[in-house]
């Protein structure tokens, strides 16, 4: 079947197309070259005056897994039992369910989402939940860096080749797309009662530094040829003055590719009367010097949310500021997790400055290929607040309205008043489509060239960019219309993407011995089998 999308203004940075009116043709779920005769199309969508982009990609959003579920249990008031808003669908109206996640993302034109923190011990659960999210294509990043086996390897002076094998084995065992490291060694140090942990601190008992762990993992990811660079959650998240940590981490990358997650939370100086200031300019300047580094912002937006993190040390420190006053923290095999509900308030100096720092990062970093659109859902704000963030990036006036409302000292302490930049649709398409696809190593999406999957979002060109991105006029997933006029019309199933790099099977001998000696399960039970995943969770895996 041939489908024709005609008359829309195309924004496709991967091909350098900036708002040209062109026709797009789709066949069998893929974009194809135009046929000789446009009339050959079986289905025709006239899109005159509308904006056409590839489906958006979220590279960092906590949508599945044990910690997300713990947060659901801790925050029942966030998903009060309601009857289905969509007749005919089970639990279709239940907020914060897998259905809700898929629906809300699709309605904004997103078609691929990455869960950036899959604890290997939780990978089975994470995959079951990812498989249950309708419409979207999904992927997970496996967490390493606080696990006993890796730290033992490094303590024992194992070579990089052994670490590479272990990382590759983990990726295959968890069926993930990349590797994430959260406060490398911090959660392990937390077990030995450390409550502060920097890049050059040693993990007690293991005697390896955070820097050593980071380097070993980063080199492994590069050596294995995994498309997505090491995804790093640095030390000292949320601590005033931590911009130095972020800068040292960039240096530690030694020119190899590395992705720093939610850098807004590392953009803090310790100056000023409140001992809290913006470090966004220093971060942006450092990014200019380190072309190997990419970042996502983790923007804060005001309102109630819940912070979910594998950084147990940070979450333990933040438990006192939980609003409502309840929190949950657990420590487990590969790390752990902490859930701290939080309410960001515009009238609070620190929260307002966090908000401003995120926006400064967006506006100061000139390269939309290297700065990514996230709120670290739900840590900075739930993903449902994305339209507001699009609006802030694309409208100086909207920012000015907010600057008048936030804590006045924060408004004075930040650079935001002096930043005139407004994101264009082309830059937005780069940041949310072309660049994420490239960063994740998923060449078949994020653009509208022939051969790409037919994941396409169509928006009305409205003055109010928030309204525009809140409700896509039309979303196609694999060529099938799934959203019309901002409402889901067809909740198709999405796929899960993973990489399976090659490794030397010899690693399984010491691993099996370690599992037998220390672990709750045997190695063969720990490792996920794609056939079983398909059978039990309904996950359709695509191995890259």
């Amino acid at each position, binding site marked *: 079947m041939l489908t024709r999308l005609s008359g829309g203004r195309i924004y496709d940075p991967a091909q350098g197309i900036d708002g040209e009116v062109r026709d797009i043709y789709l066949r069998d779920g893929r974009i194809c070259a135009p046929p000789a005769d446009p009339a050959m199309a079986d289905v025709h969508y006239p899109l005159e005056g509308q904006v056409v982009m590839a489906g958006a990609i979220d590279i960092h959003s906590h949508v599945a897994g044990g910690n997300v579920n713990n947060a659901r249990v801790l925050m*029942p008031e966030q998903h*009060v*039992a309601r*009857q289905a808003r969509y*007749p*005919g669908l089970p639990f279709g109206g239940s907020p914060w369910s897998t259905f809700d996640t898929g629906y809300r993302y699709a309605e904004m034109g997103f078609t691929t989402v990455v869960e950036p923190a899959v604890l290997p011990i939780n990978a089975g659960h994470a995959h079951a939940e990812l498989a249950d999210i309708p419409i979207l294509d999904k992927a997970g990043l496996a967490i390493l860096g606080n696990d006993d086996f890796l730290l033992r390897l490094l303590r024992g002076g194992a070579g990089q080749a052994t670490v590479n094998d272990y990382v590759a084995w983990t990726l295959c065992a968890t069926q993930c797309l990349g590797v994430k490291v959260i406060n490398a060694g911090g959660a392990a140090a937390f077990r030995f009662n450390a409550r502060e942990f920097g890049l050059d601190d040693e993990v007690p008992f293991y005697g390896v530094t955070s820097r050593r762990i980071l380097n070993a993992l980063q080199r492994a990811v590069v050596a294995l040829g995994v498309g997505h660079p090491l995804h790093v959650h640095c030390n000292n998240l949320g601590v005033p003055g931590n911009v130095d940590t972020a800068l040292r981490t960039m240096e530690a990358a030694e020119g190899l590719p590395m992705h720093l997650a939610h850098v807004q939370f590392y953009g803090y100086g310790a100056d000023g009367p409140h001992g809290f200031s913006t470090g966004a300019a220093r971060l942006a300047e450092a990014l200019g010097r380190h072309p190997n580094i990419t970042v996502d912002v983790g923007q804060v937006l005001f309102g109630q949310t819940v912070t979910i993190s594998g950084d147990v040390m940070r979450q333990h420190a933040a438990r006192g500021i939980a609003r409502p006053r309840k929190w949950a923290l657990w420590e487990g095999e590969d790390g752990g997790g902490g859930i701290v509900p939080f309410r960001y308030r515009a009238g609070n100096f620190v929260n307002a400055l966090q908000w401003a720092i995120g926006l400064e990062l967006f506006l100061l970093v000139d390269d939309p290929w290297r700065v990514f659109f996230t709120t670290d859902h739900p840590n900075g704000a739930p993903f449902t607040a994305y339209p507001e963030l699009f609006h802030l990036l694309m409208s100086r006036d909207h920012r000015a309205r907010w600057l008048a409302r936030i804590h006045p000292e924060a408004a004075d302490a930040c650079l935001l008043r002096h930043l005139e930049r407004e994101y264009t649709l082309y830059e937005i398409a780069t940041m949310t489509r072309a660049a994420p696809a490239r960063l994740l190593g998923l060449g078949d999406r994020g653009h509208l060239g022939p051969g790409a999957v037919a994941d396409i979002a169509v928006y009305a060109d409205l003055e109010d960019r928030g309204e525009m991105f809140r409700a896509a006029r039309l979303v196609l997933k694999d060529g099938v219309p799934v959203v019309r006029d901002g409402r889901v019309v067809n909740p198709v199933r999405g796929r899960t993407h993973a990489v399976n790099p090659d490794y030397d099977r010899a690693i399984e001998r010491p691993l099996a011995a370690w599992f037998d000696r220390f672990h709750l399960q045997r190695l063969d039970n720990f490792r996920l089998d794609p056939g079983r995943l398909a059978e039990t969770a309904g996950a359709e895996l695509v191995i890259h």
Partner: protein
Amino acid sequence: MSALTLALRQPPPGRVDLSAIRPDRLAGLGAAAIERLALPCGRSPVALGELFRVHPGDPAELRILGGDARLDGVAAGLAGGRVLVEGEVGWYAGEGLRGGVLEIHGDSGPFTGSAMSGGEIHVHGDAGERLGAPRAGGRRGMAGGVLHVRGSAGARAGERMRRGLLLVDGDAGDCCAARIIAGTVAVLGRAGAQTGVGMRRGTLLLGTAAEGLPPTFNATGAWRPGFLELLVPVLARRQPAWTERLGGDPLQRWVGDLATDGRGEIFAPD
């Protein structure tokens, strides 16, 4: 102008969600437009006109004739006006009521007046369980207004109440006034097991000698605090029997639940 009337044609084929049918939303709609409104019924929508015969009138007063235990969400979120039901209603009647009056001449299902914050609900029959209580996951129950049940109430009446007045003329089920934060609950008949369990603050008046209170309540002896002379007449205006039940004698008083905040009070005659 007479009331807008919806007369049920026959028992509905599935659970019907009437929460969208509110006087403020019906204002300005003609009878034909009202008949075309889609109501969720079971797993698929059905036109209102298929279930109800519509007699046009002023939507500020809405009458529903011929109730059914499968009509859910009647007058949910009502902010003003009157809704009158001649018959039974299902779950979530008057949920989140903010103002106006809901009058049910029949029994009502679970979660009647769930988390209401104003207005009045009168149930002339019996009410189901979790009267005024929040839905699963909600943190706050009734937060204002008056909820008056002429018959009996099911288990967990008034759960997690924050403010307002809850009156039950008949009996209340188990765990009456469970986990209430504040507010006033008055049960003229018998209250079931674990009455007041988890009570933080608030006042529970019983018209019948108390039995089966949780062990975490302390009996403080017989006493008659002054505020009863103000409160009892308020109750008596709605149910005259209160004057005689809580007459001039000292009442037994318990404080609790000491397993939580422990500043709640229960009063009952000997």
